[in-house]
């Protein structure tokens, strides 16, 4: 189809859609003032039943915990897929080779940059850990914390040069972290089965509300998500950054 043909088809579709969408908009329940039975049920039940204060985490890790397992699974699929695609025949055994950026002078690494990187990286990782840890009580949790930790590790890249960074960041380590995170999530859920209880039953003591260690099994699942997400995103970032260096002679795309 030509560009005009395409646009014409789309315009025709819009012409059909817009009146319907408008009708739909008019029929929508009033914004901010319609019943939310599911939400009310959870908001009323979770603080008492699970001793956590962050309802979103309660939904994610307990009431609808299997969704999160599926979500981590999907993340593993995507990361594994991206790894396969990017690594290709690049091969891993060569990753210790120094990377050089082509057609561009290697940027001079100033002392300030090095200092900022070395200071900011651990701080960011620490912040990520804090966010992950407080998932049961305040906004945040394993997912957000995991991504922050991953980006903290990326900051190390600014401080170390490519070779040093790559020496620290071994793919197998983060593959392992990712896999173990998901496995931990699943095993945490399976732990209830020998007792004759359903998958993901929260069999651990719930702790005190507003305490970091409240929520029982949710703490484990939260940790598992943090590991999986951190591992997954680091692998992604490594593989993408690998792409910015040239292939050495022995390698083929």
């Amino acid at each position, binding site marked *: 189809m030509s560009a005009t043909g395409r646009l014409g088809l789309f315009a025709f579709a819009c012409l059909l859609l817009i009146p319907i969408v408008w009708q739909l908009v008019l029929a929508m329940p009033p914004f901010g003032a319609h019943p939310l039975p599911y939400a009310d049920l959870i908001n009323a039940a979770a603080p008492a039943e699970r001793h956590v204060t962050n309802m979103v985490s309660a939904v994610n890790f307990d009431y609808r915990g299997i969704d999160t397992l599926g979500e981590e699974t999907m993340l593993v699929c995507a990361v594994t897929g991206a790894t396969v695609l990017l690594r290709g025949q690049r091969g891993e055994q060569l990753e210790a080779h120094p990377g050089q950026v082509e*057609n561009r002078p290697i940027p001079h690494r100033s002392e300030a940059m090095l200092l900022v990187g070395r200071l900011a990286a651990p701080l960011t990782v620490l912040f990520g850990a804090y966010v992950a840890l407080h998932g049961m009580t305040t*906004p945040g949790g394993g997912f957000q914390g995991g*991504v922050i930790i991953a980006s903290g590790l990326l900051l190390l890249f600014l401080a170390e040069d490519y070779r040093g960074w790559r020496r620290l960041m071994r793919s197998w380590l983060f593959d392992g972290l990712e896999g173990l995170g998901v496995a931990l999530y699943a095993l945490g859920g399976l732990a209830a089965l020998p007792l004759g209880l359903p998958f993901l039953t929260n069999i651990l003591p719930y702790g005190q509300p507003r305490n970091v260690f409240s929520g029982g099994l949710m703490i484990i699942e939260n940790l598992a998500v943090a590991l999986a997400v951190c591992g997954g995103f680091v692998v992604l970032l490594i593989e993408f950054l690998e792409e910015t260096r040239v292939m050495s002679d022995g390698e083929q795309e």
Partner: protein
Amino acid sequence: MTPLIGLLLLLEAVAGTAVALSRKPRRQVLAMSVNGQVLALLFMALQAPDVAFSEIVVGAAVLPLMFLVMLASCRMDRASSGQDET
């Protein structure tokens, strides 16, 4: 609260449209980052701090970074194969 939400909704409509209409990939990355930040503000206003947090981390930081890395890689590739375009 409501005027703020209305304002942010309009802002999001603009930011989202900007993402779709920024034809040059590198400008689009910038638009995406802005879009992520606007979304995060909107989510804060909609009382969803958890989601705002994720959106800031993923939508406004990590994903644009991946786009940038990808574009950088393409540029290197192009430079090495002698073609030139942006």
